[in-house]
């Protein structure tokens, strides 16, 4: 069986299971009608295949390396992967290229350089070569606008942080492993104990 056929088969199986479960709820006729629809599409696994081989669109390879380290420092690995692990840096490069103007692109390019230069000045190493703790301290300084960082640096960094956060929590891992993703809730329940859900929803705000 080819890889594609295999996933499609799995996909159909999943779809059938969902339908069986649903027909109890809404009746067989209605659930059959829905077979033709997109409501049950179960997204096949996200192939993060060519992350390494992809050419950056905006940044130099060196910048992208620094950015990867920034991503991983802002959202590190815990029992789930960190932002660098899920190619948030590649996402940012792509997103900035397609969805933002040159001012925004420059701001991010700038702040990557600012961070790297400050690593060089402080530690004589590229930011991507720093020890975790040292990297953390440096980003903490720019985040809080202290130890020589200027207001403008912090503003640019906050914008970068927004992109990292956006990229991470809309990635499959961020949305569905770190947070809880519920594509078809089946109904709305107010006043549920937070402990029953366990984390914030990763499936909000996509209307």
């Amino acid at each position, binding site marked *: 069986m080819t890889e594609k056929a295999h996933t499609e088969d799995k996909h159909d199986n999943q779809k059938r299971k969902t339908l069986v479960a649903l027909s109890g709820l*809404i009746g067989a*006729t*209605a*659930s059959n009608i*829905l077979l*033709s*629809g*997109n*409501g*049950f599409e179960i*997204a096949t696994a*996200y192939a993060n295949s060519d992350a390494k081989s992809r050419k950056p669109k905006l940044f130099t390879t060196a910048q992208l390396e620094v950015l990867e380290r920034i991503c991983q*420092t*802002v*959202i*590190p690995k*815990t029992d789930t992967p*960190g932002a660098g692990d899920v190619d948030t840096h590649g996402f940012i490069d*792509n*997103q900035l290229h*397609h*969805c*933002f103007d040159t001012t925004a692109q420059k701001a991010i390019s700038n702040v990557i350089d600012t961070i790297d230069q400050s690593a060089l000045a402080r530690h004589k190493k590229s930011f991507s070569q720093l020890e975790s703790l040292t990297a*953390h301290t440096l*980003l*903490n300084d720019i*985040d*809080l606008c202290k130890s020589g960082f200027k207001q403008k640096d912090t503003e640019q960094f*906050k914008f970068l*942080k*927004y992109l*990292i*956060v*956006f990229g991470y*929590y*809309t*990635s*499959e891992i961020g*949305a569905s492993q*770190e*947070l809880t993703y*519920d*594509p078809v*809730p*089946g*109904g*709305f*329940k*107010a*006043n549920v*104990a*937070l402990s*029953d*859900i366990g*984390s*914030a*929803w990763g499936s*909000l705000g*996509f*209307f």
Partner: protein
Amino acid sequence: MPSSYINESKEEFDVLIVGSGITGGWAAKEFCERGFKTLMVERGRAVKHRVDYIGENVRPWKQPFRQRVEKKLVDDQYKIQQQCYAFNDATKHFFGNDKDLPYSTEKDTKFSWIRANQLGGKSLLWHRQSYRLCDSDFKANSLDGYGNDWPIRYSDLEGFYSHVEEFAGISGTPENLPQLPDSKFQPPFELMGPELALKATLEKDFPDQKLIIGRAAHLTQPTELQVSLGRVQCQARNECQKGCSFGAYFSTQSSTLPAAAKTNMLHIAPNSVVHSLIYDDKTKRVKGVRVIDNDDLSEREYFAKIVFLCASTVGSTQILLNSSTKEFPNGLANSSGVLGHYLMDHNYNADIGGTIEGFEGEYFKGRRPTGIYIPNFHYEPDRYHSKFIRGYAFAGGAYRENWGSRASEDGIGLDFKNRLKQPGKWKIRLSAQGEMLPQFENRMSLHSTRKDKWGIPLVNFDIKWSDNERAMMRSAAKLGEKMLSSLGATEIWSNVKDDAPGLAIHEVGTARMGRDPKESVLNGFNQAHDISNLFVTDGASFCSTAVQNPSLTFMALTARAVDYAAKEVKAGRL
């Protein structure tokens, strides 16, 4: 699906409906079910239920820009449409394309015209909020003197409201409020903790401000008929604007179209841009429509005994204005001269918010497709505010902050990640939804020189908020803050914006109803005073905006107009 799509036809249909959105869908269903051979003429492409919901259920990580739209595309084609909150990468194909559909605005004025030009129209994109108008809404113009008196009263529409509600499916709670008559309801969505707390606060300290769950056209307990049309209960995804394969919210595709198609009386002509109406000055009747093909720009005509314009407020009036004849030099059926005038929208320009403590252990499951609603409390002259006339409602809801709004918080690393893993503070938000006064000066017309690619003159808008609307928004912001402070909210803020008219997407007026043919285009049955076989049943017929979201009333007016027309035909008068 539809009985048949047609292209060329010399046949004379019983009825021709221009537009396939909320009103066109209703007109088609009601006529088909009465045995009328019906042609629905739609300028846009056919959108098939389920099959063409290409954005539905695609996970954000499967979307190239994670739901954002490519900048170049926005700049080139969606400059106006992107102002709409529902515009994103998974819905953009249901919005009109600003490049192909330009319009102009008078100097120093602005208007944001949000469009959905395809089979289904804006019924695919709407937010499903559904409220009846009340008797004082129909009397307002006559009582305070703005605009003309509505030729109908609540009692004229009451039965038709029930009729459309039972079919569409409206969730909500009966409240027995004079300013917001109850609909025929399916079970309501639940209120969340902070919303219940606000409700209790209002009951104690603000007797006029009543908090209810937003009434929405979502199935929560489908009827047999609804299930037989392929509709099932709402799954609380709240991704409705991408299209819903469950058919859980009312749209042309989920509801009126399958019902009409079942009769075998429905014919649809997609990709048919109506240029103008064909008028016969001997019989004083319209005979049909002139159409330009959406794609290849070729011309054709369609014919019918009766024409219903359901092309949306601006769309219908544009067609009338572009159908001048010797007898009607300023637009067809415009002997009154008011065609194009009294354009209105709702004013949504005040927002209020705050933080609520004490509910940290509570959360919710599912994504509720509606919010909370505080109906108009200035609904009759005795209850008007001293600084402005007419009134407004609040819509809003409680939510917990998530990563979206917390990214700029200080912090990085483990601590930051762990913080974002949990939901943030509970917030509550209210937005005012204000009435706009009917004013002759606010109007749309046809541009004297510029035309679109189909050769149709561009619509030119000339509309401004008045001081009344601005005073209302300032007052709403203040009252909203007071209510939240009474609740004990913290970090309370309010903001009065200056968004252009149009963005509430509740444009109404421009071919208003009235008793007097000298000051109105349509009579109380949405029938043109000047031309008996011509009806306009969309928002163009409105005499005032009232406060409520208008589409439920569009549906009821349409059903009533069809009922009337069918009876007139039977009586041999039409």
